[in-house]
């Protein structure tokens, strides 16, 4: 019952058997035959995976902090504003890094490769969001 509340599964991170990012890695290997570009794209995918885990940790920590503030009848507006600003700064930094990596992948892939990678990326999103939703509900 706290703003942005959701308990997000941490079970889908890099290296775990059910990590949907592995499907994306496989697709990169299958679609990008130029080894140098494939490695570069895979390294971006790995970094995005790490940043998503970091983002999840930030989110879970923020929810815990927000819950503490909410339950404390004496918490002040200044405390809320400081928490929100800090959380926003951390998340925005992660967002900007992921966007840069995303655009890097897009620019390194040819139009044909991108056409094959994009649908897999959509599937990755769907499974990630579904995991988040089912963990919450």
């Amino acid at each position, binding site marked *: 019952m706290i*703003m942005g509340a959701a308990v997000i599964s941490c079970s889908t991170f890099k290296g775990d058997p059910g990590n949907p990012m592995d499907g994306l890695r496989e697709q990169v290997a299958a679609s990008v035959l130029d080894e140098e570009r494939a490695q570069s794209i895979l390294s971006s995918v790995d970094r995005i995976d790490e940043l998503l885990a970091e983002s999840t940790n930030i989110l879970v920590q923020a929810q815990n902090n927000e819950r503490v503030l909410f339950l404390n009848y004496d918490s002040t507006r200044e405390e809320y504003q400081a928490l929100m600003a800090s959380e926003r700064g951390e998340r925005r930094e992660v967002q900007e890094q992921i966007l840069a990596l995303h655009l890097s992948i897009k620019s390194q892939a040819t139009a044909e490769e991108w056409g094959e990678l994009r649908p897999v990326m959509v599937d990755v999103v769907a499974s990630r969001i579904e995991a988040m939703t089912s963990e919450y509900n």
Partner: protein
Amino acid sequence: MLMAILLASLLGGGSAELFVRDDFRAVERIIEEPERAAAATATMQRINNRLNGLFNQRRELVASLVALDLDVDASADVYEKHFDELWLRREQATDGYVRDVFEMREHISREEWAAIFDPPEGDE
């Protein structure tokens, strides 16, 4: 794609509502004056509506970004513009949320607050 994961991460999880039916029932059960209880639940509902609005905006933005990914020539500026708009809306929503929390305190006493939102185990 990854944009959408990111959006989900930066905005929160899969739920669009903060207070569930049990929270509303607890307010109505614990606050004896109907007018005060109604004022409290109205504020709680406003928070839920605020989050629903943000949730829907997120969905719209995800759709926009998925479409943007179709355009191989879409520039970074176009992506960033979408994110700037989202962050602005999120900041407005969180500011409104904080205002609403403090308004809730005007309707709910300290003891009622604890009984409603942090009841001892077994009293939920």
